């Protein structure tokens, strides 16, 4: 049990440090690399929460696809923003203040709730959770509709991204 806590604390420190570096390092490509570290740490948290499926999905979707996409985009737009120029806009001090206040308010609210500290954790997660999840996603009484809507959303995003991202050459008629 105490081992869990040690792992959690180490992971939390890594995730938070990486996240702070994501929003503060001047070089965009480094920000993307730190984001990968933060996402990997969050995958570890999912394992601690006994949701191995989501840990694996986190690695596939966020690290394998989204982070790679971001790195591609950063490299394609590298010339636009010199890395030595100012990376933060003039509201940065205000933004820091706002987010610190937000953190204080959120934490205060969460800790004033009784359940946050003495909610008993359920002893073990049913190993069939994945089966249940799959069945409820394809069950009309369950979450079939949201699941289909999500797939339509993905399809629309796919088509939209290709259309927007495609190069429309000057002088060439739209196909």
């Amino acid at each position, binding site marked *: 049990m105490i081992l869990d806590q040690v792992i959690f604390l180490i992971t939390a420190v890594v995730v938070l440090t990486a996240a702070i570096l994501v929003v503060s390092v001047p070089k965009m490509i480094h920000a993307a690399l730190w984001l990968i570290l933060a996402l990997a740490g969050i995958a570890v948290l999912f394992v601690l929460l006994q949701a191995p499926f989501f840990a694996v999905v*986190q690695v596939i979707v966020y690290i394998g696809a989204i982070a790679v996409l971001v790195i591609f985009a950063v490299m394609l737009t590298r*010339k636009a923003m010199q890395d030595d120029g100012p990376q933060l806009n003039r509201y940065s001090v205000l933004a820091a203040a706002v987010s610190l206040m937000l953190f204080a308010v959120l934490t205060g609210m969460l800790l004033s709730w009784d359940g946050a500290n003495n909610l008993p954790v359920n002893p073990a997660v049913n190993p069939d959770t994945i089966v249940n999840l799959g069945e409820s996603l394809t069950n009309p009484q369950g979450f079939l509709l949201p699941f289909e809507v999500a797939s339509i*959303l993905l399809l629309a995003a796919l088509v939209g991204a290709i259309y927007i991202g495609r190069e429309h050459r000057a002088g060439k008629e739209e196909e």
Partner: protein
Amino acid sequence: MIPLSWYLVLSAALVCIGVFGVISRRNAIAMLLGVELILNAVNINLLAFWRYMDVIHVTGQVFTIMVITAAAAEVAVGLAIFIAVYRNKRTIAAEDVADLKG
């Protein structure tokens, strides 16, 4: 064992870091990274609440799947828009793309 509050405080901190990134970074892609942090914090929260309060049902997990789907769609379209903007205006600083401002 890990109290629920630890997860909640961690995800609150992640949200705030993400908000800071979204407000203060000039580079549009960096703003997107901030949004990613926020969405991940949401996922931590959803799964933590699922684990501590509703482990019998799968509702929390379904919500997490939806968030991941939305995040993937958002990144794909967002990056496509930034690259299109970059092609047309040679910049991806968010404050330079203000043509619609009255």
